């Protein structure tokens, strides 16, 4: 695999993740940390279908991944939102870890070792660029869908719901179904990204989707600017590009890996305290 192309594809996939997470978190105001689990659901669904049913075309599997992610997300949101928005935070964390544990214990998912040798539909030297084109288009589409949702009357309703949910409801809007809808859309997009991921990298394992992955996506959103349309794009680029910059320093891997982690976490902490609005955010937006 050509390295710069792989990076670019990763950026595209993570842009989808960050943008969809921002929709749920930054715009919808839904405190959830389980975004990677929907990424995982999409990846595993697409991957398993590709391995077990090779006749089915790839894009169907990716769509199936999205669909499964949507169903799972409605299950989570439907039950936990009934308690309160705050509860969703812990509930989503527990849900993510529980589901990952389940995946690790089941045979057909490949267990803790993961699902490998996912058949590739594209082969040959043009595989990389072709995937880049597909993932890039998907990323662009995702950002535009988010933009379309948050501008215009629906976005207005989302803002109102976030500002004063009680008044919003008393004006005739079903806040619960709106939250579930936003959640489902965001998680569905993450599921789609998962499908693309499974097909390109041809290997998925539970460790790729745990709490550290949650933190990574959260970092992208916070850094780029929560509640802005293009912030997640900036965040995804930064978070994937900075480690590459450090690679040039030729440090031994045992130093480099934690070093990258230290730089990210420091960046997030710095932004959290000094500029909570993120790079693209406007100051004064409540976080």
């Amino acid at each position: 695999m050509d390295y710069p192309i792989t990076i670019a594809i990763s950026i595209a996939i993570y842009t989808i993740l960050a943008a969809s997470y921002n929709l749920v978190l930054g715009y919808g105001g839904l405190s959830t940390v389980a975004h990677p689990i929907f990424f995982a659901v999409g990846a595993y669904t697409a991957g398993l279908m590709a391995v077990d049913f090779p006749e089915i075309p790839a894009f169907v599997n990716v769509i199936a991944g999205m669909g499964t992610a949507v169903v799972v997300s409605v299950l989570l949101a439907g039950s936990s939102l009934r308690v309160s928005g705050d509860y969703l935070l812990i509930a989503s964390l527990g849900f993510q870890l529980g589901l990952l544990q389940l995946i690790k214990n089941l045979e057909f998912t490949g267990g803790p070792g993961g699902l490998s040798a996912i058949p590739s539909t594209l082969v040959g030297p043009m595989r990389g660029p072709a995937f880049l084109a597909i993932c890039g288009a998907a990323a662009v589409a995702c950002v535009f869908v988010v933009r379309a949702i948050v501008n215009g009357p629906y976005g207005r309703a989302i803002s109102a719901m976030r500002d004063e949910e009680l008044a919003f409801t008393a004006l005739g809007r079903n806040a619960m179904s709106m939250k579930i809808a936003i959640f489902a859309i965001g998680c569905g997009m993450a599921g789609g990204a998962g499908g693309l991921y499974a097909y390109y990298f041809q290997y998925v394992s539970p460790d790729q989707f745990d709490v550290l992955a949650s933190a990574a996506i959260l970092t992208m959103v916070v850094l780029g600017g929560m509640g802005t349309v293009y912030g997640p794009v900036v965040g995804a680029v930064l978070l994937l590009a900075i480690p590459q910059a450090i690679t040039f320093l030729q440090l031994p891997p045992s130093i480099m890996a934690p070093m990258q982690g230290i730089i990210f976490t420091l960046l997030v902490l710095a932004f959290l305290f000094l500029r909570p609005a993120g790079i693209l955010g406007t100051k004064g937006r409540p976080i």
Partner: protein
Amino acid sequence: MFEPIILAQILWTGIATAAPFVLLTVGFALTLKVTGLWNFAQSGQMAIAFYTMFYALNGLGLPLFAAVALGVVFTAGAAYLIEVCGLQVLRDRQSGNLTFFIFTLILSEFIIYVITLVFGTEPETLYRSILSPIDIVGGIAISDWDKTGIGMTAIGLIALYVFMRYSKEGQFLTAVADNARLAELYGISARRAYRVVAIVAALFIVAAMYLIGSHGWIVPNSPLELVLSAVIGTLLGGIGRVFAAAWASIFLALIQSFSILFIGSRWQNLLLYGFLFATIILFPRGVRMPRFRWAR
């Protein structure tokens, strides 16, 4: 298979193994009760506690009490700093729950990354051996570690109970837990309560990490899993109910231990999460959420 001796052994070992997790859960649940915060920064504190004691014992060759003292100083110190320079700042800004979550989680990760840089990723234990001398009492194997663990936990829980019920500081904690603004009207400082509970939790963390670290292997990432078991115990015990959380931890550990008789060991972890799942999806209303009433 179900002979009384075997059951008794499982019971004993189960409770002993649960001991450090009870300590962690209690620290976590107490913090949640008083501050209303799911303080994931405690996983960073767990890392600090273990590696400080590890370095003191193995790197500096200090005796045990000095190592533990050092552990307490660094962990409590970190807890205090986090509270004063981090959490209170966010509270003053009226930040939302998500900000606190991001802060506490990312801070823990930062601490863990630094520790990884310094100590590497090799599994470590406090002593060279994780085995401790065993007595056979009535046919049941009881190790020194078991006794230490259960003893420390029992003392810790009793001390906490006495502290919360009968000491002024402890009663202030309960007052702030119930209603911080109201407590302030009565002259009780919420900020002080938050700092006190940070230190109390740190003590429990040091005790727990000593137990875990002398009985098994720790890598820098271990605390992330440990804090999750604290979360599960807290959720199942009921938010705001510290001693119920302790019981929940014991209960969960026993379920896991006894389940060996029925299911393969690889499913044990899943059992834990199964409980969590069921609580979240089927009985969310059974979990009471605290109302966050920040005092300024």
